[in-house]
C-alpha cells in the first residue's frame, strides 16, 4: 500500500529516472498523474514520469469509481480518492523531498513519523495515505455480505454474533467525536478481534494491532452522498 514510485519498468519515460527507492513488498501499478476521472489502473504517462521526483505513489482502488454505487457515489470516489487521497500523497512527497526520511515502507514510515507520540509533520500525510489505501481495500462492489471461514468464526467467538459485531461497529462510528476512523482490528497481544476508533489520522498499526477493515468517518467520506445523516452512510 502506498508504494514508492519505482522507475523505468513501471514508468514509460523516455529516459530512465534514477531509482528513487528500493521498493519492497508487492507492488501495484501507479496511476498516472491525470485527472481523477481516469477509472482504470494506468501506468505513468510517458515523458512526464522522468521529470517527476516522488517517493510514494497513489494506489488506485481495486474497482471502478462507480462500482460502489448506490452506497457510495462515483462523485464521492472521484473527490475522495482523486483529491483528498491524492493530496495526502502529493503533500507527503513534497515534505519528503526536503527530509531524509526515505527508505521506508509506508507502514514503517507511519511508525517512524509517529515518533512515539510526538508526531513529525510527515505523520499526518503518511498515515492518511495508508489509511485510505486500506479503506479502498476494505470495500468491494457487491460486498456487504457476511465474511467467510476463519474470520466469521473469530467474529462470532469475539462478539457472540456477526450482528453484535455490526451493531458495535455502527455504534462506535456514530459516537466518534470529530474526524477519525473506525476499525475492526486483531489485537496482537490479546489475540482477539476488537472494534476501535481513532482520531484524525491515527492508525492501529501504531500500537501494533492488525487492521482487518477500516471505515473513514471524516465528513468528506460521506457528506456528498448522505449530508449529515452519517447513520445511513455507515449502515
Amino acid at each position, binding site marked *: 500500500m502506498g508504494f514508492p514510485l519505482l522507475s523505468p519498468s513501471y514508468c514509460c519515460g523516455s529516459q530512465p529516472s534514477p531509482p528513487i527507492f528500493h521498493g519492497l513488498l508487492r507492488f501495484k501499478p501507479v496511476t498516472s498523474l491525470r485527472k481523477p476521472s481516469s477509472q482504470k489502473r494506468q501506468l505513468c504517462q510517458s515523458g512526464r514520469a522522468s521529470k517527476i521526483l516522488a517517493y510514494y505513489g497513489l494506489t488506485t482502488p481495486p474497482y471502478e469509481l462507480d462500482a460502489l454505487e448506490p452506497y457510495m457515489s462515483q462523485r464521492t470516489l472521484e473527490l475522495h480518492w482523486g483529491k483528498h487521497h491524492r493530496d495526502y500523497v502529493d503533500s507527503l512527497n513534497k515534505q519528503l523531498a526536503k527530509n531524509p526520511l526515505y527508505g521506508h515502507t509506508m507502514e514503517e514510515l507511519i511508525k517512524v513519523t509517529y515518533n512515539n507520540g510526538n508526531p513529525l509533520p510527515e505523520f499526518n500525510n503518511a498515515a492518511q495515505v495508508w489509511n485510505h489505501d486500506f479503506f479502498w481495500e476494505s470495500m468491494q462492489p457487491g460486498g456487504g455480505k457476511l465474511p467467510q471461514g476463519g474470520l466469521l468464526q473469530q467474529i462470532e467467538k469475539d462478539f457472540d454474533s456477526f450482528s453484535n459485531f455490526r451493531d458495535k461497529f455502527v455504534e462506535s462510528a456514530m459516537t466518534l467525536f470529530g474526524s477519525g476512523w473506525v476499525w475492526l482490528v486483531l489485537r496482537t497481544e490479546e489475540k482477539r478481534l476488537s472494534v476501535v476508533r481513532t482520531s*484524525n*489520522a491515527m492508525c492501529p498499526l501504531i500500537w501494533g494491532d492488525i487492521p482487518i477493515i477500516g471505515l473513514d468517518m471524516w465528513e468528506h467520506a460521506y*457528506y456528498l452522498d448522505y449530508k*449529515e445523516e452519517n447513520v445511513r452512510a455507515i449502515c
Partner: protein
Amino acid sequence: MALRAIAGKKTLTLGLGFGPRGAVAASCPGLGLRLRHVRGLVTFSLPDLPYDYGALEPAISGEIMQLHHQKHHQTYITNYNKALEQLEEAMAKGDSSKVVHLQSAIKFNGGGHINHSIFWQNLKPANEGGGEPPHGSLGWAIDTDYGSVEALVQKMNAEGAALQGSGWVWLALDKEMKKLKVETTANQDPLVTKGANLVPLLGIDVWEHAYYLQYKNVRPDYLKNVWKVMNWKYASEVYEKEVA
C-alpha cells in the same frame, strides 16, 4: 431576541460555568441561547438565525446554512440536553464514574452549541455590512498586534487551513493581557479550553460540513470567501465591552 421571547418563564442566569458564553450573551442579548426550565433542569433550543439561509450567498450557500443550522447545530443541542439530563441523574445517584464519563459528551455537544451560537452572530449578509472591516478600537488593536487586518486574515486562514481534522479557528481577546490572539481548537472544544481568559471575538468553523458541499476539499477557498460575510461589528462590540 430569544431571551426576551422566554420572558415570563423562569430563566437561569447564564453563569453555568461557560465563561465565554456568559460574557458574550451578556454583551449581545440577541445571541439567543434559548434557555428553558424543565423540572429544574435547563434545556436548550436552537437559536434563530438573524438572516435568511440564502442571505450569505455566494460566500456560503443557502443549502449549507440550512443543513448546518437545522441539522448539525440542532443535533449538538439535542445531544447536549440528553447528556445534561443523564448528568443530573448520575449526580443525584452519586455515580462518579458516570459523571466523569459524561464529560466528553458534554464538552463535545455543549461546545458545539456554544461555538455555533457564536458563529451565527459572526456572520452577516454583505448587504447588511458583512465583510466591512473593523473600525474603532478593535481596528487599532489589530493594526497594533498584526500590522493590518489583511495580515490578521492571512494568519487566521493559514492556521485554519493547516488544522488537521475538525475544529475552529478563532480571533480571541486575552482579557487579562488585553491582547488579541489567533487560536485554534480541535473538534468542538470551546475557546476557553485554550485559556480561561480568552474571549471569542470571531470564530470560523473548519469542520468539513461547514464548506464541503460548496467548496469540496478546497478549504482555503472557503476561508478566503467567508471574510466577505464576516460581522466585524459584532467582534468590535464584544471587544469594546471587554476592554472598557
